[in-house]
């Protein structure tokens, strides 16, 4: 039998990543010092970003597609990967979790996300999700001596496995009805048929599975616990890159496979989005642990991004992409500050930080205002674009709800600033500066102002 050799050009970025990840596993065996592995990871990711735009097209009979949409998402994922490695280098050593597999797993996970961004077939979606999630489960528990980390890993694994099962169930029903997993063929089938209960069920199951991944209410319960327990660097990675990948699939699958059912799934998503913004923003107010607070904030931000999916225009898609990019920088920056402080998990640890470490406090101020969405930071530009797209699509009332919740969110972000600038200095918290952290903070802060003042560079 003559099997044609597939054209692998579009997949080259993923191949590079997989090869690098595997090589890292091997080098790890002989490397005494694990830090160079991180450097290799950064270099590989940087090269991959550089190469991304030049490898376009379809592969594997159209199951995999590399287009402008996927390239943008892959860039976000890889930027997030680079920043994650930068903030991990020193952090892992202080946490006694300096295992070489860490970097390798990060690369595997990022590759899974990249597959998700390029998937045009539900099988690829599933492969990508599994590769991403399995690596993340391990990474969450990599602080082996810390019971909270283990608990986070266990919780994430159980709930993640549950959501994957739901996804599989949805896909298999869909396959049973349409005899295909290619989302274009699924769309063709749906166009010729009625909205049968089985079809609706499969759609709902897929929505539920992805709501788990983006931590949308009411499927958000895992997020605060996992974000709190996981190593901070992994929390940062999960809240940015993993979320971007899940949104990439959500954007592509729903618009390609179920365009006919748009009224149905927008109704479901509107309810989910409102709940997500409400629960995320309101519960964040009550938190005393900053990682938990950022977890709820991350839930709330997923709510804003869902607005773009609901709006569903091309403009809304680019708004979503811009928002995820912006969110990556500001969230990474905030987590980098959490890592920078020797003891920075409790919100009370930030009391008087502007006196002991004015520069760190000023950076945190920028990240918090950006998360609130106050100009001239990038957070404002991101929100503005999403709101603009949603209003243009006719969802003005939904945007009014979103801006009100966005104003409420100011309260808990401002609380950090209040603690840093307006509370007297408690016990002095030391900081652990390192070159990697400094680089990550610098990149985040510069990008926040650059995108905030000249959004044209990324539009």
């Amino acid at each position, binding site marked *: 039998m003559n099997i044609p050799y597939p054209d692998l050009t579009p997949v080259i970025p993923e191949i590079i990543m997989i090869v690098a990840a595997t090589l890292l596993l091997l080098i790890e065996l002989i490397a005494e010092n694990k830090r160079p592995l991180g450097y290799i990871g950064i270099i590989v990711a940087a090269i991959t970003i550089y190469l991304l735009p030049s490898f376009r097209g379809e592969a594997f009979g159209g199951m995999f597609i590399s287009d402008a949409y996927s390239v943008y998402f892959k860039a976000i994922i890889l930027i997030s990967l680079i920043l994650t490695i930068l903030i991990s280098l020193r952090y892992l050593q202080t946490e006694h979790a300096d295992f070489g597999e860490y970097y390798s797993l990060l690369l595997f996970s990022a590759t899974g996300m990249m597959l998700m961004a390029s998937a045009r077939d539900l099988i690829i979606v599933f492969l990508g999700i599994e590769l991403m999630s399995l690596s993340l489960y391990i990474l969450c528990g990599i602080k082996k001596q810390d019971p909270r980390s283990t608990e986070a890993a266990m919780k994430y694994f159980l709930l993640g496995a549950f959501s994957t099962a739901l996804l599989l169930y949805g896909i298999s029903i869909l396959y049973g009805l349409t005899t295909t997993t290619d989302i274009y063929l699924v769309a063709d089938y749906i166009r010729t048929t009625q909205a049968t209960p089985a079809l609706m069920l499969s759609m709902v199951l897929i929505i539920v599975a992805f709501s788990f991944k983006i931590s949308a209410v009411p499927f958000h319960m895992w997020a605060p616990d996992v974000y709190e327990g996981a190593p901070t660097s992994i929390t940062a990675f999960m809240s940015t890159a993993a979320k971007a990948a899940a949104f990439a699939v959500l954007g592509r699958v729903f618009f390609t496979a179920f365009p006919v059912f748009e009224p149905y799934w927008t109704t479901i998503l509107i309810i989910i989005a409102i709940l997500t913004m409400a629960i995320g923003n309101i519960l964040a107010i009550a938190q005393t642990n900053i990682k938990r607070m950022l977890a709820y904030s991350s839930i709330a931000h997923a709510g804003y991004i869902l607005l773009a999916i609901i709006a569903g225009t091309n403009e809304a898609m680019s708004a979503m992409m811009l928002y995820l990019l912006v969110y990556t920088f500001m969230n990474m920056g905030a987590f980098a500050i959490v890592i920078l402080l020797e003891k920075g998990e409790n919100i009370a640890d930030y009391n008087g930080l*502007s*006196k002991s470490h*004015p520069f760190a406090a*000023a950076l945190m*101020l920028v990240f918090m*205002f950006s998360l609130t969405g*106050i*100009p*001239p930071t990038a957070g*404002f530009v991101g929100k*503005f674009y999403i*709101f*603009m797209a949603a*209003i*243009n699509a006719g969802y*003005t009332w939904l*945007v*009014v709800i979103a*801006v*009100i919740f*966005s*104003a409420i969110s*100011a*309260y808990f972000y*401002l609380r950090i*600033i*209040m603690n840093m*600038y*307006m*509370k007297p200095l408690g016990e002095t918290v030391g900081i652990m500066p390192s070159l990697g952290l400094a680089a990550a903070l610098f990149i985040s802060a510069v990008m926040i102002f650059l995108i905030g003042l*000249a*959004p*044209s560079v990324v*539009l």
Partner: protein
Amino acid sequence: MGHATHPAATEVPKSNYPLMRTAAMIPMLALLIFAGAELARTLNYPVLSTLIFLPIVGSAFIILSNRRHEALIRWTALIVSCTTFLLSLPLYTNFDKTTAKMQFIERYSWIPAWSAEYYIGVDGISVLFVLLSALLTILCVTVSWTSVQDRTKEFYAALLIIEGSMIGVFCSLDLFLFYIFWEAMLIPMYLIVGVWGGPNRVYAAIKFFLFTLVGSVVMLVGIIALYFATDRSFDMLRMMSTDYPFHLQMILFWAFFSAFAVKVPMFPVHTWLPDAHTEAPTAGSVILAGILIKMGAYGFLRFNLPMFPEASKALAPAMMVLSVIAIIYGAIICLGQTDLKRLIAYSSVSHMGFVTLGIFALNTQGVQGGILQMINHGIVTGGLFLLVGIVYERTHTRRIADYGGAASLLPVYSALFMIFTLASIGLPGTNGFIGEFLILLGGFTASKVLGVFAATGVIIGAAYMLWLYQNIFFVEINPGLLGHGFRDIGTREILTVLPLIILIFWIGVYPNTFLGFMDVSVQNLLARLNSAGQANVAWQIIEVVK
């Protein structure tokens, strides 16, 4: 100035030196300003951009400097703010008063994808605010010279950023740019109130921030809706000449109203103001009272009136009623205050009620009076906050009951305070008279009943201000004050309030200098309002009441 040479001067021997020194410095300073204005006039530079970005660059310089060099930081702030003011003078000398068109226009492409532009310019309505912002910032720097000791670097950096964004708000002709400046100044203002303020500062700061933010985000939705209604354009001049359908005008009016009413602040949403003004440090109070709350009234003039003329006409009666409520309510609350700054803060609510009353009277006298009264209020209330800050630095108390008989301890100071008190009451010869008179004239023309009610605010205003003055400066000397070993007001402090005193009498005696700036622009604005569709039922009700 008879106080200074009073026999009491022998007991406080140094008290007349500052006066003499000030008197000696005035000609020098006047010469400097004159020379600076002449120089700035001949130079060729983008005036408005310079005014926006020079303070921001200065603030960046301060941020990058070493925090131990406090003197360097202070002098940088002073030099930057003075230079900004001098460079703003061409707006005064080169402004063409015969046209309602925008002047000093700068226009560059900024975000082509959204057709947002860097588009700035001033007309007769905004130009005075730019000048006032530049002037007040200098005074904020000098008054904080010794009172701000904690984190000096951050303080002056924040102050200069506020200056840049304030000027940006008044110059923006692109709605997106406007919103950026409008919101950006929240950050430094929040910090100034919250970090360098009084005992209850944290509560006041967050209240200020949340009130303003909620109002602003609703406006943001309105801005986006307006953007699509104007065919994807943020060009404000284009919006001012587009006729939107009536129902859209009504919705957008309320959206913009929510942001501006909070800023002004109008009656039901004014509660942040007493807290913020009271707790803010002196410079913060001056900026808040002098410029920040003017941005709300300016917003009505720049957005609501010309962009939604029919809605403005329809809703003007409601706005006037709210204004009158603010005038009387604010004044009555003042009568019951025990805190010096809180009293002046509530008097702002009352005075800003006059401003919005004048604006929504929708006639020449009312609108001109409204604009002039905004400037007046900036000068007078800004000055009162400066003076209160000066005495607070010595006594560290704001309770009125802790004062008494200060006139014999601080003769020069009490004379200066008197000038501001009388201007605040609106005595003829001071600027307050001109503004309030024009507004009452305009208000009376629009509705006799409301005009009469508003006039009672003037009377109550006189009552609380004179009561305040009496309790602080006359009555018997409060023994608690003697312990402080008072120094009368010094040269730096006199120079700080002097420009405001000059302006009080200048506007009071010859207001045409300033009214001349706005005349054509206001006529143009009213022509736009009158050419819009006829007023509806609500206005006819007012006609009947008349």
